[in-house]
């Protein structure tokens, strides 16, 4: 499966990565190189195989549950400490609603 330039632009837009027009061809070549290499996986028979989700040996079922209670919060200053732009207790962003 080979990506055309329109797909490369669409994927960049989905990933919220600005892609300059002069870089499209180079990125396309790199991605197709990697995807071409990955293509060999299609040859593996995976009929009836349960997909492995997560890295926990024994599977996700081995993971513990905790009580559904609030354990943290009320730390606005810590949360906002690294904000590039803040207004009071809010993050500042460009105007969203006209």
């Amino acid at each position, binding site marked *: 499966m080979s990506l055309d330039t329109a797909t*490369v632009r669409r*994927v960049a837009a989905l990933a919220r990565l*600005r892609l300059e027009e002069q870089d499209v061809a180079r990125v396309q070549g790199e991605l197709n190189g990697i*995807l071409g*290499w990955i293509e060999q996986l299609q040859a593996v028979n*995976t009929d009836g195989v*349960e997909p492995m989700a997560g890295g926990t040996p024994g599977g996700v079922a081995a993971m*513990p549950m905790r009580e559904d209670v609030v354990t943290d919060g009320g730390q606005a200053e810590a949360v906002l400490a690294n904000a*590039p732009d803040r207004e009071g207790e809010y993050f500042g962003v*460009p105007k969203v609603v006209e």
Partner: protein
Amino acid sequence: MHPTDFTLAGALAALNEGAISAEELTRAHVAAVEALNPKLNAFITTTSEKALDAARASDARRKRGEAGPLEGIPLAIKDLFCTEGVRTTAGSKILGNFIPPYESTVTAQLKRDGAVFLGKANLDEFAMGSSNLTSAYGGVLNPWQRKDDPSARLVPGGSSGGSAAAVAARMALGATGTDTGGSIRQPAAFCGITGIKPTYGRCSRFGIVAFASSLDQAGPFARTVEDCAILLRSMAGHDPKDSTSANQPVPDFAAACGRSVKGMRIGVPREYRLDGMPAEIEKLWRQGLDWLRDAGAEIVDISLPHTKYALPTYYIVAPAEASSNLARYDGVRFGLRVAEKDSDLRDLYERTRAEGFGAEVRRRIMIGTYVLSAGYYDAYYLKAQKIRALIASDFDAAWAKVDAIVTPATPSAAFAEGENADDPVKMYLNDVFTVTANLAGLPGLALPTGLDHQGLPLGLQVIGRAFDEETVFAVGAALERAADFKAMPAMRAGA
């Protein structure tokens, strides 16, 4: 003896006997960092003043009889671990001004046990790389040199390249790393030191900048197997803040280093004999197996039939998880923001991410976004998860026949900057022997057992059953005793 030449265990003994103070030990390492870091670039941020304060506090605790298991030991911390009040960059421009308001669980436990932090070690950006060259803060120089060409700039491996170089050059007695596809074991092998990626879930991931959550695992670097075992005991343990951290008792890993390998069955997977593998790697491997046989172990040929699919599987799973994890870098809540005067929110996101991320990170986000996108999810991501299950069941079958598996750690010694750079896939092949343990969630340890024709270190890897790091340490320690690896890098403190 120069204080930077201590092993970690040796330094603990010297501190206990009062032969040296934590302040003296830290001062020697701070001096080594100041002398060598301008050349090696192993640290992005040094915290010498904080380290000396911590060392003095450590001496006071020891005096009061309150010494912890790592009391006064100076360490390097990979700059992927959030450290409260100390800038944490993940090797990225996008986190260039990020000062975490909290501490990662692993570093909090190291501090609890008395360790002293010298600074934040360099790494590939967001731990994505095998050379440390994707760091936004410059590459790290491997302290080892080629016999025939000492001026060649060799890479330390990656992604934990700064951690490995710092320990090899004796700027630190140990270091933390993380390993998603080989990021502890490959740099350990390239720098002639020891490192272990424990079982997935052994160490909490809380406060570690996430790359691929189902693969990421923290582990230690040190110059001996026993030193790694001592560090891992402090780093490991259940943490309610990470739902994937295992609620398993943490054994005394160092005690396992003294266990005999007599009667153990050591597996040799035939699929790891790659076409075109250098003769010296093949020889190193055979030598390691001979040593274990001499120590009373039984060598058993095994098959891990899906091995050749591990790397391409990894390059679906890891970028997919990375593209999701890295969605949080949006220029709004923390980190870099790039916007034009008339930027709307979407333009702010796109400019911030395009400028804040380096080329390799952007490439992996694109791959991950594509394989997760509508219409391709089943063909790529689901397929990869199924092959991952097959890779894990290959190991399950092997554990019926063997107690541990021994392989080379890397397909070559350290390469020079610029080599392997023309093609991303060529760079990815560095992790061919290590990535299977990440996919299956198993512990893997790398240690140096020989030198190549250029005098550069080569390493072997020991893989074990889930939560059986003790056997891995026992086999690693047996190899270490037999190899008696004494070579040292050209660039090091006290040299």
